[in-house]
């Protein structure tokens, strides 16, 4: 029902350009511009996939108020820490647990929403690389979101109805001997390329 509501408000159109919606285990990684990003990707998936796919969200932000706590828990978000990382709250631990239990994840490797009028996503943080190392069998799918920041831009809480498009690209894998920086640059480029595709 939540998914239906999100689809109604955003008129989201999923474009499967490089892969098909299948039930294999996946990490969807996307550009991040709006609080709607996670819910929109999640809602654009077919129901069977939606059940086992969890958006990953920042613990500090999404537990700060009661409303945010309620929203993140009702979407089944995996919350991870962004600051004061210690061995005990290592963000990779809950993510690994979710993947080990057979789920798929939606992550935003920028770690935060990009500035309001930024054209391109920020530099990717290394979490995606670590997950790719630990779970070589999980497909890494680049996702490009367009217009979410026009519905609900950073720093505002009233929505404007705009049609969102979500493009799912071709899965990427870590190449033989590729180092962390090169992989993250390539992953980020894959997301950007999806956005340039249809403009």
């Amino acid at each position, binding site marked *: 029902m939540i998914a239906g509501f999100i689809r109604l408000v955003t*008129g989201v*159109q999923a474009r499967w350009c490089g892969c098909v919606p299948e039930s294999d285990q996946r990490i969807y990684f996307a550009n991040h511009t709006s609080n709607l990003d996670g819910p929109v990707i999640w809602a654009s998936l077919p129901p069977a996939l939606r059940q086992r796919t969890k958006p990953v969200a920042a613990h500090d932000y999404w537990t700060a108020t009661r409303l945010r706590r309620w929203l993140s828990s009702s979407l089944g978000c995996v919350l991870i820490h962004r600051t004061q990382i210690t061995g005990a709250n290592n963000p990779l631990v809950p993510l690994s647990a979710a993947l080990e239990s057979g789920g798929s994840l939606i992550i935003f490797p920028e770690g935060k929403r990009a500035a*309001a*009028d930024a054209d391109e996503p920020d530099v990717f943080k290394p979490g995606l690389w670590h997950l790719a190392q630990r779970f070589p069998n999980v497909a890494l799918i680049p996702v490009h979101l367009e*217009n979410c920041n*026009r519905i609900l*831009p950073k720093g*505002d809480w*009233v*929505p*404007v*109805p*705009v*049609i969102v498009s979500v493009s799912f690209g071709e899965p990427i894998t870590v190449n033989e001997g590729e180092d962390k920086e090169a992989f993250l640059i390539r992953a980020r480029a894959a997301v950007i390329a999806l956005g340039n595709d249809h403009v």
Partner: protein
Amino acid sequence: MTMFDIWHDSHCRTVLAIIGAVLIGASVITASLSRGERGKTPLMINLRARVVAWWWMVALVVMALSLGFIATVVFFAFVSFLALREFITLAPTKRGDHRALFSVFFIALPMHYVLIAWPWYQFWAIFIPVYAFAFVAIRSALAGDCERYLERNSKIQFGLMACIYAIGHLPAFLVMGLPEGEIAGMRLLLWLLLVVQLSDVLQYVWGKLFGRKPVIPRLSPHKTWAGFLGGITSATIIGTGLWWLTPLLWYEASVLALIATLLGFCGGAVMSAIKRDVGVKDFGHAIGGHGGILDRIDSLIFSGPVVYHLIRWWLDLP
């Protein structure tokens, strides 16, 4: 007005029967044209999708009209909402326009339709051109971002006029104060929708059959002279033949049908210019075979308000 009045009125029943017959005819013709290999061509696939979409659109409009005036107002408010959403999606605005856009969608739009449901004609007619116009311009300026300000604001103002103000005139026909009351307004609305939309269809058919030379080559290669002349002429003849749906004499209805179809063509041309400008073919994918909502109602954005106000003036309505 009570529910199902449209079915109690013999004029409306007749025109609905005609529309039903035309739709059945269209389905039969496309089915027979689609036999064999020819049915797999993109043209025929698109044609079949268009006919199916026509069934849905007619069903929705008739359902709204059947449920009465308020349902009709709500229906067109929803059409406005979807059309404006398509328009704003393609007309890039900036962060500074966010609050202005919010008020267009959630204050100006509902307000315009509440005022016609009221109905409070004097305020409804000026609310958007006077108050919403000022508010949108001021709100975006107060946000302090001057980059491309005029361009951004023009886009919002155009969306406001085309998607809300103009489309809001369609349910207004029901309460425009015709001597025979709301049912006369409903007949007139059916007449306008039928003439303008049939004109679109007939322009398409004439164009596909005989079209060669485009009217405005740089705007649209599909709007040909044959389509334009054939479509306008035949739709005007049909509009004249259906004069009994309007409060006018047959030759008055004929002039009005000509004006409505010409403005319908112009509405399509203007929206094509906008689509060309932003580099898309259609405004969306909401209606199979047709594109977006806005691609379907583009012919009503000028013809609706102009016909409405011409009739007010001609019949000297208060």
